[in-house]
């Protein structure tokens, strides 16, 4: 592999075919990511694994039929049609088994996946046995091979990828509704079953179109990994879909370019590994649900608890024994080396005691609804979502308006707020 060839392929300068393949892969990846997001939210990620493995007998039968009809046998649209038919049969069987028998959906998925694939392998060996030396192209469907694709095939994949993206866009509203809250969707008159069917149909279409590039063993990754990665970045359905489309598109783009720049580098695995790299980066670094952010949040919370408990102990003149608490208070200049409180420490302690009383009053109101005449429209639950605030620890003076604060103080019998920052009426 040469960096040069990779860069030219990446920036669409690698010749007509390579450019078409890269664009087609990117469009397909985006469509797969977006429709995968809906499948992911409906918790049916692995149903698409059964669909993709179930394409193999269809591909082989389509090949045999086209050969018997005197054709080439490797005509891509014909193979894709065969794949779609057998994948649809597989999907119907999965749904039927899960509904009509006592077996779970997991068993239905595994059974369809392995049996269809096994039957497909049998048919592939039949084709090899015919000895016409034409079966070689079929094996590319297992792991994908973008290199050496015909221009017409690349064009077809690019067009189909674009069409699937459009279809996802057209169906986004009902699918978002069903993915977000199926019960509510049903109540508003959406036919959940039909939307689910359309969603799986879309996944099926993307699967069969993507077979030639990604291969049937790994195409499921294009439906699962991008939404799983996007989930770390957002809690909103529309952004999840968009993020999954971007992640899927980028990984397919980079993967196809990488694979086109080296001989014998199978396209599917490279695309999957590119997607996984984005997934791993999201898992660690995403600010919303990433592991690093979660660890930092946890640490910040822990420190806030230690600080508050230490200050309350100072206010009550109790001894502080916890070394972490002592360390935090010393670093903030609230304690001297010998353990005595500084002036700043005593002031902070008074402030902490006041804030604790305010929080208690606010919480008491939350558990006794209608108990307060004060116009505090916020409840503790919603306070937590206000920026970085931590319930019960962030000073209320920083969260409430001065007006709200003084009314709260009046209610807990403090008359007027003491000289706390920002608290003066």
């Amino acid at each position: 592999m040469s960096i040069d060839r990779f860069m030219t392929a990446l920036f669409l300068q690698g010749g007509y075919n390579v450019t078409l393949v890269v664009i087609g892969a990117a469009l397909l990846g985006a469509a797969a990511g977006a429709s995968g997001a809906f499948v992911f939210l409906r918790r049916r990620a692995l149903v698409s694994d059964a669909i993709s493995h179930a394409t193999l007998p269809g591909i082989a039968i389509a090949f045999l039929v086209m050969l018997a009809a005197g054709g080439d046998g490797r005509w891509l649209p014909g193979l894709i049609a065969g794949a779609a038919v057998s994948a649809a049969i597989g999907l119907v069987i999965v749904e039927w088994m899960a509904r009509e028998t006592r077996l779970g959906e997991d068993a239905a998925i595994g059974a369809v996946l392995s049996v269809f694939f096994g039957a497909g392998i049998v048919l592939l060996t039949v084709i090899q046995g015919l000895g016409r030396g034409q079966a070689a192209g079929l094996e590319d469907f297992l792991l994908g091979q973008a290199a050496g694709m015909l221009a017409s095939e690349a064009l077809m994949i690019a067009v189909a990828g674009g069409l699937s993206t459009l279809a996802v866009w057209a169906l986004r509203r009902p699918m978002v509704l069903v993915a977000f809250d199926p019960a509510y969707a049903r109540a508003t008159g959406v036919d959940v079953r039909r939307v689910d069917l359309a969603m799986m149909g879309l996944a099926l279409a993307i699967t069969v179109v993507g077979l030639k590039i990604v291969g049937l063993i790994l195409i499921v990754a294009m439906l699962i990994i991008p939404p799983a990665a996007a989930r770390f970045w957002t809690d909103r359905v529309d952004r999840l879909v968009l993020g999954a489309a971007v992640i899927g598109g980028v990984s397919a783009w980079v993967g196809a370019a990488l694979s086109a720049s080296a001989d014998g580098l199978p396209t599917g695995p490279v695309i999957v590994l590119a997607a996984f790299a984005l997934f791993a980066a999201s898992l660690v670094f995403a600010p919303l649900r990433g592991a690093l952010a979660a660890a930092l949040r946890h640490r910040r919370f822990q420190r806030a608890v230690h600080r508050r408990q230490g200050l309350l102990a100072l206010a009550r003149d109790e001894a502080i024994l916890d070394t972490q608490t002592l360390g935090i208070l010393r670093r903030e200049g609230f304690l001297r080396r010998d353990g005595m409180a500084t002036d700043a420490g005593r002031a902070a302690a008074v402030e902490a005691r006041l804030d604790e009383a305010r929080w208690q009053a606010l919480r008491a109101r939350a558990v006794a609804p209608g108990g307060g005449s004060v116009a505090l429209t916020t409840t503790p639950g919603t306070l937590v979502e206000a920026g970085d605030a931590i319930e019960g620890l962030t000073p209320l003076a920083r969260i409430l308006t001065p007006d709200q604060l003084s009314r709260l103080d009046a209610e807990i019998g403090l008359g007027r707020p003491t000289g706390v920052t920002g608290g003066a009426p």
Partner: protein
Amino acid sequence: MTAADFLMLDAVPMLIGVLASVACALPGNFLLLRRQALIGDAISHVVLPGIVAAFILTGLKSAWPMMLGAGAAALVAVGLIEAVRRLGRLESGAAMGVVFTTMFAAGVLALELTDTAGVHLDVDHALNGNLESLIWLEGAAGWGALTDPAALAGLPDALGRLALVLIAIGALMALFWKELAIATFDPGFAATAGIPVGAMSVGLVVVTAVAAVAAFDAVGSIIVIAMFICPPAAARLMTDRLGVQVASSMGFAAVSAVVGCLVAAHLPPLIGLGAVSAAGMIATVSGLLLGIACLAAPRRRADAHGVALG
């Protein structure tokens, strides 16, 4: 078909097919009841990277390092799935999908990038196994070969390995039968009764991995997945009793293997074709059995009551 032909060409692949199928079907029963059927799917996908890693590390293409590598990969995969599920707060199906596709992709890529020329190690083999090539040349001597120690020494190694693994799995199942059954049906009660539920789950995964790895080399990953699921699923539709279910699943697995091997080797030549993949045919036969069970088995309905202990 003469006795010599049968012994040389058919008997050994058939026997290996039966051993591999039964070894996979046994733990498959419990995976099925725990709704973890797809763990078997995930494990059989990650066997490939394990084998490739073992080959790259040791440079040897012998069975034991590869089995160790594959077993390690299975445990890594299960650990990773759990880690991704917890760290990412993902649904377990999605976590599984992320991990096993990635590991499989890494295995394929490593295979393509390292120089494995001259070594019989490729994706095709990983999927299909090489059941047909496990012939017993000494069997050409006829029935007498069965009592001839020199001829018996010529049997493929895989036969002995699989027999050993099947005996070990069978013994473990028998030994922990009661604990496994209770932990499967009622984990809450099992925990209060002092049964280590967590250890049982891990143990089941390890046994599953061992079965997958041992079977994989001879029969490829298609059969492994099919046998984890199809025979136990068919048996589950036949009966409410766990003991009967496990016994029938072993029967279904053995029938699939025997019929699959015979059909693959002898049916296509009758209509003028070459022999077809035995592994694929075994999976197909097991699927047909499951299909019949889905349509006609006595306990197939979704509303039938659960399995009883026994």
